[in-house]
Each structure stands twice: as C-alpha cells, then as structure tokens.
C-alpha cells in the first residue's frame, strides 16, 4: 500500500510539474476571460455618442423620446435636405423624418436615413418609442385610461411546477425548473465525458511510455503490476481534479477581478440592450416579484438539492473515471505504440458516445423513461446518464443506490479485467495483438 502511494506521488508530481500542465491550467481560464474581456471592450469602445436628428412635422413626439445609453435625440425644425447635408458632413448620426400627415391609426411614411445600413437595435428603439407615444394618443382618442390597459395586459396564468419526489422537511414539494435542471446536468455530464477521454488517454500514454522505455520491468520487480496500474490511474485522476479545482477557482477569481475593473456600464449597457430587444420588454423590466416564471427559475436553482447533485456528480465522476481509466491502462499495456492503440479504442468510445448522445436526446426528453433508466443502470453509461437525470429530480433513492452499487461492481470488474491484461501486456513486445490474444491473457496464470 505504501508503495502504491509512492507511485501515485510520482505520477502526480511528474504531470503537475510539466510545462504543458501549467500552461493549460493557467492559460485556459486566462484565455477564456481574455476573450470575454476583449469582446466587452470592443463593444464598449464601439459605443461612441450618437446624435439622431428628428424632423417631427407633426410635433406630436417631441419630449416623448428619451435619450438612452449612447443616443441623444435632437428635434430640429429644418428641411430634410439640410438635415441630410448634416448627415453627410457627419454632424449627425442619423435622421428620422416624420411627415406632417402621419395618421395615428395607420402610421406610415416615417423615414430613417443613415450612412450605411442601420442596425436593428437603433431602428427598434426609435420605432418602439414612437409606438408607445402613438398608443398613448390612441388611448386618449378612444377614451381608455392607461391604467386599465396595463391591468388588462397584466393578466397571466402562470403554472408553478412542483416536483413531488423530494418533499422538503416541511412537507412542501420543491419547486422545479426543467430548464435549469437540464443545464446543470448537461454541464456535469460534459465534464465527466471530457475528463474520461482526456485523462484516460493520459493514463494510456503513461503506460505506453513505461513499456516503450522498458522501465516497467524494473518497477514490477518492486511492485505488483496491479498496484502500478492503480497508482497510475489514481495519480492521473488527482492531476485532473487539481486542474478542475484550479480552473473553478481561477475562473471565479478572474471573473471577480474583471467585474471590478471593467466600467460598470459595460455590463449594464449589455443587459439593457438585451432587455430592450425582447418583445415583452415591460414585463421583464418588471421586478422578479411581478414575474413568477423567472423568479421560479432562480428559486429552483437555489433550491435544488445541491448536496445530492454534487455528491452524485463526484461519485459518478470518480467511479466512471476509475472504470475507464483502468481500461485505457489495459489498452496501453497491450500495444507497442500510440498508433497501435486505435484498434482497441472502440469498446471504450462506443458506450461513452452512446451515453453522450442519449444525454442530449432520449434522456433530456424523458429523464425518467425506460431508456434513461436502463442507461443509468449500465455501469459503462451510468456515469454520464445518471448525472443528467439527478438534477431533474424523479430519480428514486433505490434507483440511485442500485446504479451506484452497479457502478462499483462495474469498476471492480473492469479494473480486474484490465489488471489481468496489464500484467501480461507490459512485458510483451512485438507480439501481434488482437481480441483473442487479450482474452487469452485474461485467462492466463501469472
């Protein structure tokens, strides 16, 4: 056991001290944050003050246009030609001309002039402000109070969805939100999928290196091949966990730093724009209390059984990796070079791909259907599928426990199998390997 720790230590330190590890660990979050910062900076930089000249011959709109963000509206009493001359000389950014005979019942004939093609966000703002004013005029004409209309607009039937699998301690069902659940499950499933491939391949390359440099015979004269294999698998897992933790911490820290340093209105402007561009702008601008749907989403995320979700994620993350990591080690031991490993990758790739595809199709559509159930029981697919199912809720405790037990059984089985192949494979050179040979190795006495 002590010797396994020595192996784990070496496998861990050798990889963590590598330049590529440092580069990837610290570079990737910086790159991500840098890209976001660059995009934000470009957006902010692009926001020069724009003056839009409005030629309002109806005199109905003046003082009903609100300057907002980077746009200032100036109402001028000049001819369209003069205004266009200003536009050409760059004195103004755009010109809006509202004809005197504008019919509020059928508003037509308003023109917009700009150098180049106008963006929909600007024309949208102008037309929305005009619509608001015209509606106001129409309400006056029809004799309807604005408050009446608002109250009519406010009618909404909101279905608050409840998940009754996990009754809270107070006997109340947790509120659920399918969208939030799906998002969280997907993120975790993608992390597991990537981790297995990235770090599994790392285990495999490590085994091939030991075999190719022939150091392995010296090592297995000191330590059992199985111990060496497990030491490597665990050491690499710790490298992955370190990287993951550092990424989470770094992204958090960088996000914090970025939010302090960037001009405050960089985010505000963006958020405003997003809001302004939604059709139901009023409703979203309203507070969360007035908007049960959004409130429910936020509420659900906060109220999800986070403890359970995170624990399940960690369990299936580690269990799935150990199982596949051992298989990667077995493949590495059987082949003589990286190139030869391709032919044996299929049994690893297929179940992972099935789980991954299912995650975005059958499981997402019916997280508690038969396909989702069975895929979350089979150890080769359960790490990904179960991680997706749990945030949705509806997974009975016995299902979860059964799946965990099966996964433990599964990884003990695969590790045993991998160990059998590994102990023979590492000492074999220049033999032609196929599945029949591997099967023979499994049965062979030591």
């Amino acid at each position, binding site marked *: 056991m002590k*010797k396994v720790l*020595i*192996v784990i230590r*070496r496998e861990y330190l*050798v990889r963590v001290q590598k330049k590529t590890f440092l580069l990837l660990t610290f570079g990737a979050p910086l790159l991500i944050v840098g890209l976001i910062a660059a995009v934000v900076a470009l957006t902010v930089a692009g926001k020069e003050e724009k003056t839009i000249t409005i030629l309002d011959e109806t005199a109905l709109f003046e003082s009903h246009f609100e300057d907002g963000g980077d746009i200032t509206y100036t109402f001028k009493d000049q001819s369209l030609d003069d205004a266009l001359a200003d536009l050409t000389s760059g004195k103004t950014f755009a010109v809006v001309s509202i004809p005197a005979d504008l019919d509020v019942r059928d508003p037509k004939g308003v023109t917009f002039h700009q150098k180049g093609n106008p963006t929909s966000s600007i024309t949208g703002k102008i037309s929305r402000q005009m619509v608001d004013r015209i509606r106001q005029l129409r309400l006056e004409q029809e004799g309807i109070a604005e408050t009446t209309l608002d109250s009519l607009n406010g009618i909404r039937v909101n279905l608050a969805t409840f998940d009754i699998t996990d009754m809270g301690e107070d006997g109340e069902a947790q509120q659920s939100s399918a969208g939030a659940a799906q998002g969280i499950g997907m993120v975790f499933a993608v992390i597991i999928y990537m981790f297995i491939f990235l770090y599994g391949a790392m285990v495999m390359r490590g085994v091939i*290196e*030991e075999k*190719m*440099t*022939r*150091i392995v*015979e*010296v*090592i*297995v*004269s*000191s*330590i059992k091949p199985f111990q060496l294999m497990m030491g490597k698998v665990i050491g690499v897992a710790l490298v992955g966990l370190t990287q993951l933790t550092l990424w989470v911490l770094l992204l958090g820290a960088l996000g914090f730093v970025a939010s302090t340093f960037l001009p405050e209105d960089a985010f505000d402007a963006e958020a405003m724009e997003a809001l302004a561009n939604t059709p139901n702008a009023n409703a979203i601008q309203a507070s969360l209390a007035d908007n049960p749907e959004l409130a429910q989403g936020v509420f659900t995320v906060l109220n999800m059984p986070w403890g359970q979700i995170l624990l399940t994620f960690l369990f299936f993350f580690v269990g799935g990796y150990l199982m596949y990591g051992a298989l990667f080690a077995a493949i590495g031991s059987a082949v003589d070079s990286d190139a030869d490993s391709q032919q044996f990758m299929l049994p690893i790739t297929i179940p992972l791909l099935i789980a991954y595809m299912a995650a975005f199709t059958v499981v997402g559509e019916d997280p508690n259907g038969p396909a989702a159930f069975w895929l979350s029981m089979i150890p080769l697919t359960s790490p990904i599928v179960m991680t997706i199912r749990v945030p949705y809720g509806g997974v009975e405790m016995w299902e979860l426990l059964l799946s965990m037990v099966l996964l433990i059984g599964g990884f003990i089985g695969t590790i045993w199998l991998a160990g059998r192949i590994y102990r023979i494979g590492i*000492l074999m*050179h220049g033999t032609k390997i196929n599945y029949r040979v591997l099967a*023979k190795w499994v049965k*062979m*006495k*030591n």
Partner: protein
Amino acid sequence: MDFIQVKGVSKAYAEHQALRDVSLTVPEQSIFGLLGPNGAGKTTLIRIINQIIEKDQGEILVKGQPLAPEHIAIIGYLPEERGLYKKMKVGDQLLYLAQLRGLTKKQAMEQIRYWFKRFEIADWWGKKVEDLSKGMAQKVQFISTVMHKPKLIILDEPFSGFDPVNAELIKDEILELRRQGATIIFSTHRMESVEQLCDHVGMIHKSQLVLNGSKEEVKKQYSKNVFTLHYLGEDPTLDGIEIVGQDSENGEFKQAAIKAPAGTNPNDLLRQLIDKVEVHGFREEVPSMNDIFISIVKEDQA
C-alpha cells in the same frame, strides 16, 4: 550455504513450456553464471526469482525460506531490456526506484550520493535522462540496481549494450559487491565473461537444466582427459592411452596430445610417462566454458 535453491520449477506459457522441472543452487557470495542460448528460459527463471511472474510448479528457497514479497527489498535486478523515464531527472528517478525497493528517502539520498561520488557523476542529479548518452544512462541503471544494498543482485545480460569502458567498470563493481557479501547471478550467453567472473554456473537449454555446479566441477565433468606432452625420445606407448594428436617437428621438443581413460590421475600418468620419455612439459587440457557450451548445444542437435 546456498543463497538460492530452485527446486523442480516449471513454467508454461500459453503455447510453450518455458521451464521444465529446473533445479539448481546458487551458493552464497558466489558469482553465478546462468547460461543458455537465446530463448532457453533464462529470463523466465530470472523473472520468477524476481516475483514478476509466478511459477507453475516447484519451489524457490532464499536462504532456506520460501521466496516471499519481503525478499523484494534484498534483491537488485537489472533486466536485459532496461530503460528509464526519459523526462525524469536522474536524481528523482533514482530516489523513486529506491523508495519502491523499500528505502526511506533519507537512506536513498545517502546511497545515491555515495554512488554519484563513486562514479564521479555528482553533477548529474538535475539532468534529464533524455539528455544522457547511452553509456551514462547505463551507469544510472546500474546504480538503481544496487543502491538498496541488495544481498542478491540479478543481472540479465549485463554486458550486452554496455560500452567496453562501462563493462569494465561494472565488472569491477560486481567483484567489489561480492567481496562485501553480495551474491550475484548473471545471465549471459557470452562465455568470456563467464570465464573471467563466475565461480558457479548453471545452464538451461531448451527449458531444462543441463548443467549446475562450480566452474571447476563442471570443467572436470566435461574434461576429455586430454593432456599435452612435450618430450624427447621415443613416442610414449602405454596401456589404454591414445595419442590423439602429434606434432613431432615443433622446435626442440616433440609434442603430443594424449587421451587417457576417464578418471585417470594426472600424477599417475606423469609417473608412467617419466619412465618412457624425457618429459619437458605436461599440461592437462581443461575445456573452456565456450567448448562446454558449444558441445552441449551441438550434442543436442546431433
């Protein structure tokens, strides 16, 4: 006292029998040459003693005790196919291998320093193996084999691939380690190093043991009882003695190779010869290990 006793060990792989009922003994503090053509089963036996693979049948005793995992700490092993982690520093690598053999970090550091000084390579600690020449890497591999002061050192084809300077260095170290009390087993099919170093030998041919004992015993066993005689006078004629080669015009003396019956005492033979001829030289033709090796392999082919 025998350090290693191999009793009736057999090992079969899927397709072929690698060892068949092999028994041999390695005396303590001997340098034991494990001989045999390529593919005879030497490496299999060595791997079994190193507990890398398991025997199918038989027994292996280390100083009378059955071979067990504890023995890993007292065995040093240099495999035929040897290597090091390319990207690891020399010092870290030796430290790692020593710790796997059961040394504490402190003990390992002491030993590594001792060997670095001995081989005059003190500045290698931080060097990566990939930056070492082949000869330099071989020194590091040798250190890794002996740094935990093993009582039994097993070297599989130690001189293959070593350059002559290193081979000489390793030879000296082997002798020195033996003087300090270690038992050394080395497998080889190069007989000149056996003549130079070994005091005991064992030979495996086609999975079976065909030879085991001290070098003298073995040579006696394979002696053809041929003596070279330098003499003057009539050709010697004695009962049961045969002249198998003669070169009468070789300088001032005549020379003859005479074959005596098995078990003949050279003193008796010489006494008889003195009566017949004027003896100027008398020498027993002892077979070289090379002759023995070849005769065994050829005998089998015939």
